[in-house]
């Protein structure tokens, strides 16, 4: 709850801040796009965006028991709420990114997405309120359309504002905020549910619906401020170049390598976390509660650590080297889990740190290999591929465990990570001879090589 109030008060301040900037006056520092303070304000709103969107995304998980009880669902049905979000995004992110670049421009698109996802949260909540599962599924589906494209827009925004400055830090902060959103949601929604249950007097799907409504009410508010701020202050220098769909095939080879590294890395982290609990219980004789704790340490670590790592990457440059370090430590963590009986807290913490490091070093790299007018499409594509990879590998991982056990799964993940290593080497080799040498291999956060 503290979290909530803190945000609210912050918002209040920011609201006043922006109202002071009347049109046509000499811009105070806070409104001057080139000034650090201004970027900080933008950053705050961008963080809210991530916060809000993950807050909504994990709503069902936070209320899992209540959803299962009140709506008489089984676990498979419950998982559908997530499937309805994920699968459309395999395609939609890509088009989302393209629409940013080609049709709407980033401002209009963000606003559209915001309206979309906000209204669909209401659909979702209404579904719960009238006890119709399909309405909830529909809500999640439409939320998926808005939500994930919004993430693409968010990444593009980050690059627009922070490229050549604090980009890595910003990506780190965004990740951290997303995790914070999930966590706050996990902890607050149960409380909201109970509160509403007391007020209404009869727990049930009515209560569920109302709690979801409340949750929804709060997030869109954050988001609207966000977009308003952007409309007020971000003047977009439009270039004459426009992307065509066919440009995708002309994406530089380095971008494709980054895509593949992204997928290959993420599939070795998230599907494992999904299956991890049983592994910790059986192999390390953990209690279910301990297993859940060690499983979630990856997320818990990434919240505080990723901004710090982002800052370090900013200061040192050399994103590729950092990604490589992340890949090697991940490999070490997986090998520990696979081949030793060492306490999994070590391996999982290591995984948490390296995951954060990769997130804040890899995503900004895209900005340095594609021209600005293709950015949205590139990020959209990356997200699409990532979604596809995660969905497929999650299924494959389940099948591997069923047939060949966890050792095989870990070996499979190790192989995935190793192939990342190989790709990184090719990236380096390619970079070394290509014209991007300076840009990627030795980027300093401060050199404005971004033009």
């Amino acid at each position, binding site marked *: 709850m503290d979290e909530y109030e803190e945000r609210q008060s912050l918002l209040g301040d920011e609201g006043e801040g922006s109202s002071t900037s009347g049109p046509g006056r000499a811009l105070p520092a806070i409104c001057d796009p080139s000034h650090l303070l201004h970027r900080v304000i933008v950053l705050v709103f961008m963080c809210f965006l991530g916060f809000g969107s993950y807050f909504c995304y994990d709503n069902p998980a936070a209320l899992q028991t209540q959803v299962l009880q009140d709506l008489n669902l089984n676990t498979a049905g419950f998982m559908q709420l997530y499937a309805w979000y994920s699968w459309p995004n395999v395609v939609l992110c890509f088009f989302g990114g393209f629409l940013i670049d080609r049709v709407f421009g980033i401002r209009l698109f963000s606003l559209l997405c915001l309206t979309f996802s906000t209204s669909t949260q209401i659909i979702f909540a209404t579904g719960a309120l009238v006890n119709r599962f399909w309405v909830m599924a529909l809500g999640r589906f439409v939320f998926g359309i808005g939500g994930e494209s919004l993430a693409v827009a968010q990444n593009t925004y980050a690059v627009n504002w922070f490229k050549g400055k604090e980009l890595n830090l910003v990506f780190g902060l965004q990740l951290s905020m997303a995790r914070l959103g999930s966590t706050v949601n996990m902890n607050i929604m149960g409380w909201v549910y109970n509160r509403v249950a007391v007020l209404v007097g009869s727990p049930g799907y009515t209560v569920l619906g109302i709690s979801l409504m409340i949750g929804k009410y709060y997030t869109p508010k954050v988001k609207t401020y966000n977009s308003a701020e952007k409309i007020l202050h971000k003047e977009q220098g439009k270039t004459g170049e426009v992307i065509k769909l066919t440009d995708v095939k002309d994406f530089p080879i380095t971008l494709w390598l980054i895509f593949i590294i992204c997928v290959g890395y993420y599939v070795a982290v998230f599907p494992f976390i999904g299956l991890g609990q*049983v*592994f910790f219980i*059986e*192999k390390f004789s953990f209690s*279910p509660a301990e297993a859940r704790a060690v499983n979630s340490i990856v997320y818990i670590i990434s919240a505080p650590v990723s901004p710090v790592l982002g800052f370090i990457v900013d200061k040192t440059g050399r994103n590729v080297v950092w990604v490589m370090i992340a890949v090697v430590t991940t490999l070490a963590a997986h090998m520990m889990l*696979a*081949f*030793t*009986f060492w306490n999994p807290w070590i391996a999982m913490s290591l995984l948490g740190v390296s995951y954060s490091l990769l997130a804040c070093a890899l995503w900004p790299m895209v900005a340095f290999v594609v021209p600005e007018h293709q950015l949205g499409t590139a990020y959209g594509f990356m997200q699409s591929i990532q979604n596809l990879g995660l969905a497929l590998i999650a299924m494959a991982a389940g099948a591997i*465990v*069923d*047939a*060949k*056990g*966890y*050792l*095989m799964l870990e*070996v*499979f993940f*190790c*192989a*995935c990570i*190793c*192939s990342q*290593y*190989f790709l990184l*080497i*090719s990236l*380096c*080799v390619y970079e*070394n*001879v290509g014209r991007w040498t300076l840009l990627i291999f030795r980027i300093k956060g401060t050199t404005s090589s971004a033009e």
Partner: protein
Amino acid sequence: MKGSCDSLTVNMAAEKKSSCRVFTLTFQVFVLGLSQSFYIGGEVNKRQLFVELNPGSTSVPPGGDLLHVRAVGNNDTLHFLFCSQGAPTLLLIHTNSSSSDIKVDWPLFLARNTSGSLKVEPESSTLYSTAVVFSRLLEYDDANDTADPNSDFFPPYELQDFTWSRLKLSGPVAVLCGAAATFANGSLCLQLSVFESEGRGQSLPHLLHSANSSQLGVWLDGVLPRATRSRFLLELQAVGGAYPLTRVDTSRSIDDEFTPSIFKVSQWVSSLNGSSEVLGFVQWKPVAYSQSNPTLEDATPCSHTNPRLQKGEMIMASSSLIHAFYTEPETFGLNVSFGLAGDPFYNSTKFLGWTMLVGIGSPPVDLFSPLVIAVMAVGLGTPMILLLLGVIWVSVHKRGTDSTTVYQPIN
């Protein structure tokens, strides 16, 4: 069951499987072959199996069958005797002659009051013997879902009082089913499989077996539990002459590829005056399954108590095979309990299946399958090699382009 003395010989000319005893890891990768697994420890031997039902009897013996499987090796014989007169019992006798046989004095055997009605011929060839008796099935009401079998026990089912079916034989596999009066349509079944060579169980938990061991599957199917939250335990007695099975070792392994999500294996072994040499064993993985065609989701963990010394007279009274063969049996008993706190109760599927191995010598040890080794070698090795090549390539390339800035000696 038709005749009593039908004896059949099971195909013994199994195709030759190359055995690999060179265990250099790098070498294995190239010798993947198609063999299921590698097996260290002892001979990779083969045995000829001769199956005989009620040996020497002229009529169908009342009260249950006696199955005799003679597993003949190059210079020794393993006699597997499986009997449902009284509590179901598996007796293993290891002899040092490939022509030894079993002699049953049927009138005495059926009278169940004298030892020595079942003998090995020649008697001096006996090296070692061990037996496992399935004595009781215990049931308790786990009302609080703690899976702690200490209280609320229902009266135990004495397996010697069950009505046992005739043995259903198919090759070296025998199935025996029995039921207590209150089981409704349910039954407790035991399946004995004897093997002529090394291999692995067809269904989960895919235990690795050698020609020196036999596999016993136990399942409890369709039994009406006495409470909705009932859980079960099985009481096992290990009977031996000189060296009974006294302790259970549980070892951990990083390898769960054959039994997914199970990283432990338990071995109930006989120790020879504290030395590490194992004469006989009962081996199992601590997992049972709640479906007859199990998948990973049907796994339910099981645990065991420490073996405790039992009174010999009790076991002689309950199993006629023990009474007939041993004069002064040394007996240790333990309970295997199925399910942990939070696991579904028996009532949810009304099926519980568990598998164990009974054999002589050291118990089989699972090794990494060639598949895992191959994936490791290709997955981890190739990138390393490429990395090395890459580094070399880059450094060569660099030297080519930066030839002007080569380091000069300082002085």
